Each structure stands twice: as structure tokens, then as C-alpha cells.
């Protein structure tokens, strides 16, 4: 991954630079107008957020039962990125909702669920930062619980009324929208991969530094 980092960074930058042109040329959604363009940013960010949360959960389980320090670093990095991408989703959603539904926020199933998931990811970071010694295991248990909780949050909020467009929207996109959509999704995913690599590298260096300090003290 380290050899690929620079080339991928160049590719991702180029993709980000080109994405606005592509989104501009995409078919104009008549009922929503210009606001519908948020979709190219909002939905892929949501996908990456989910992916990142799943990575965090699996890595935490690995750390809890296998004591693999690499898994812990991966969990930490993906939790941070879950919060970052969650912020994008939560910031862009209301902009669209204001136009489409006439309100900034609604306690609908998908919104509640994203919000709760985002809160859990934040509380994970909170534990890691302020938990003191042993917070790595604390955080891991939290992440495992959070992941197991996802189906229940999904079910319980789904029995409420729902406003948010269904998941069936993405596979049935018209061709003129599909291209730019997956382009944006790929760009955001690449950014996730790059950020994750950079973050993992930083954590590795930190761990190495800590090990050196400990060796010096002995």
C-alpha cells in the first residue's frame, strides 16, 4: 500500500477535480433542481461511512479476542473516518431535505439510524481519548456492541414511518445519473482508503515511538 500511496493520491485528486464537471453534465432531476446534485456527495459518503463502521466492528472483535495490535490501530482509524464521513452525510442531508421535504430534519428511520451510528462512533473516539489506561479494550467492546446493535436499530426505526428514499434508488438510477454517481462513489472511496492508510501509518509510528521510549526506560 505504501508504494501505491502516491499514485493513488494523484488519481484521487484528479478524480475530485474532474467530478464537478461530471456532476454538472449529469441529467437534471426536474422535480428537485440543483439541490439534487447533493446526492452525488451524500449517498456515496453514507456508503463509505457504513463500510468504515463495519471495518471498525470486525477489527475490534479481532483485537478483543486475538489481541492483535494491528487490528486495534485499524479499528481506531476507521472509527475516526466513520465520524468524518458521518459528518459529511449529516451535513449534506438537511440541505437536500429542506428542499425536498420542506424541513431540515425529520426523525425518520434512516436519519435516526445514521445519527445513532454516528453517536456510537463518536463515543468510541471519546473512550479512546479520555478513557485512560485500558481504553483500547473498552473501545473494542463498544465497537462490537455497536455493530451487533445495527440490525436492531434498523428494525426498530423501520417500524416507524419513513420518508427517506429507499435503498432501491441506487441500483435503478437512470444511465445519465449512474455514471457520475459511481464516479463520485469511487472518488470518495479512494479518499477513504488513502486517509485510512495515512492514519494507520501514523498510529504505527506512534506505537513504534512508544516501544522505543519503553526500551529506553528499561
Amino acid at each position: 500500500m505504501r508504494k501505491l500511496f502516491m499514485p493513488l493520491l494523484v488519481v484521487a485528486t484528479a478524480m475530485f477535480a474532474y467530478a464537478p464537471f461530471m456532476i454538472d453534465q449529469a441529467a437534471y432531476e426536474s422535480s428537485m433542481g440543483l439541490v439534487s446534485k447533493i446526492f452525488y456527495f451524500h449517498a456515496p459518503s453514507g456508503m463509505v461511512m457504513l463500510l468504515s463502521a463495519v471495518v471498525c466492528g470486525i477489527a475490534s472483535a479481532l483485537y478483543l479476542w486475538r489481541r492483535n495490535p494491528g487490528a486495534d490501530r485499524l479499528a481506531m482509524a476507521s472509527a475516526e473516518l466513520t465520524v468524518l464521513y458521518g459528518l459529511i452525510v449529516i451535513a449534506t442531508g438537511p440541505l437536500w431535505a429542506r428542499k425536498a421535504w420542506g424541513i431540515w430534519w425529520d426523525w425518520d428511520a434512516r436519519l435516526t439510524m445514521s445519527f445513532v451510528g454516528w453517536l456510537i462512533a463518536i463515543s468510541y473516539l471519546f473512550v479512546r481519548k479520555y478513557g485512560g489506561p485500558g481504553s483500547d479494550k473498552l473501545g473494542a467492546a463498544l465497537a462490537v456492541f455497536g455493530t451487533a446493535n445495527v440490525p436492531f436499530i434498523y428494525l426498530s426505526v423501520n417500524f416507524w414511518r419513513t420518508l427517506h428514499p429507499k435503498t432501491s434508488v441506487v441500483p435503478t438510477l437512470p444511465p445519465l445519473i449512474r455514471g457520475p454517481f459511481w464516479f463520485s462513489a469511487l472518488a470518495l472511496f479512494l479518499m477513504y482508503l488513502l486517509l485510512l492508510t495515512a492514519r494507520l501509518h501514523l498510529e504505527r509510528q506512534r506505537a513504534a515511538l512508544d516501544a522505543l521510549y519503553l526500551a529506553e526506560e528499561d
Partner: protein
Amino acid sequence: MFTRTALLVLKKDFAIEVRSREILYTTLLFALSCVLIFSIAFVKEGEPLLDAAAGILWIAVEFAGTLALGKTFERERYSETLRALLLAPAPRAAIYVGKMLGVVVLLAVAEALLVPLVALLFHAPLLAQPLLLMALVAAGTIGFSSVGTLFAAMLVRARSRDVMLPILLYPMTVPVMIAGVRGTSALMQSPADVPSAIMWIGLLASMDVVFMTIALWTFEPLMTE
């Protein structure tokens, strides 16, 4: 062996509690003050808002439960007995179960007082379906306590544990709260919406099973130093 250890832990906590009654009284008083504060927010011109009682009941349980959870483990930490408990040649999971049962019993006592009180003060027909309400409250309490006991136990050694417990516990117990509140308000309708109440009870029961399984599973690696 497993059941005996769990019951012994429960008996020990119970004996301490019977002597001091500290946790019971603080929990009850706290639940009462919660109800009082809600009465300010949700009563309009002498009439309580529709459906408010369900939310008030469950929020009071959740808040009071957080207090009780923090206290049960604070006691162990204070007298340095948690290590002794963990050193005992018994399955760790049994200690967890004993602790959790203690919290459940305590909350059951608090709920026995809270439910009639909320029904009375907010003119809510909470007791129209007593058996279903009991099943709902029991399933919700077990779900809440199973997550809560694990988190309280693992936070014993953490810094700023008092702040941390609600921050971790509330997002995690959101589905329990949703199911509890929705189920209770289904029971409060006239006539009671029994099928959807049963659906929520079922959802709560499956949550209990999953939460308990993961908690029993993670308690051992979590409490090992």
C-alpha cells in the same frame, strides 16, 4: 457451579443493599425527580400530552438505571473488592450474571413504584393490560441492564467513568428505548393495540438474547488485565 456463583454474587450485593439501602433510595428519589421534571414539560393547561406517559416512564427508568449501575460498581471499586471477586475460582461470566440480576431486581422495585405513579399523575391507562406491560417492562429492563452492567463493569477502571457511562450507554440502548416506548404507547391506546405490543415485546426479547450473548462473551476478555 455457574448458577450458584451468580446467585452468590446476587446474594452478596443484596445483603449489602439491605443493610444500607443506599442505591435503592437514591434510585427511587432520582426517578421521582425525573417524573417531576417531565410534569413541567409535558403537562399543558392541566392536561398531560397524549402518549407522554410512555416516554416519561422509560426515560425515568433509563436515567435511574444509569445511576444504579454506576453505584453498584463504584461500591466494588471503593472497597477494592472487584479484584477479589475476579480472583475467585469461578467462571467470570457468572459474576456478570449475578451483577446483572442485582441491577434487574433493583430496577424492578423502582418500576413497581414508577408505573402506578406515572399512570396516576399523567392520567395514563398504563395498567389496562397488566400482564403485557409486565412482559414489556421486564424485557426492556433486562436489555438495558445487560448492556449497562457490562459497560459499568468495564468502566470501573477508566478515568471519568461517571461521565462516560451515560455517553456510551444511551446511544447503545436506543433500540431498547424505542421498543419500550412504542410498545407502551401501543398498550395505552383504547382499545389496546395488542398485536403491535407483542411485536415490540418479541423484538425486545431477541435484543435481550443478542445483548446477553455478546456480554457473556466479552466479559471474560474485558475483565482480564
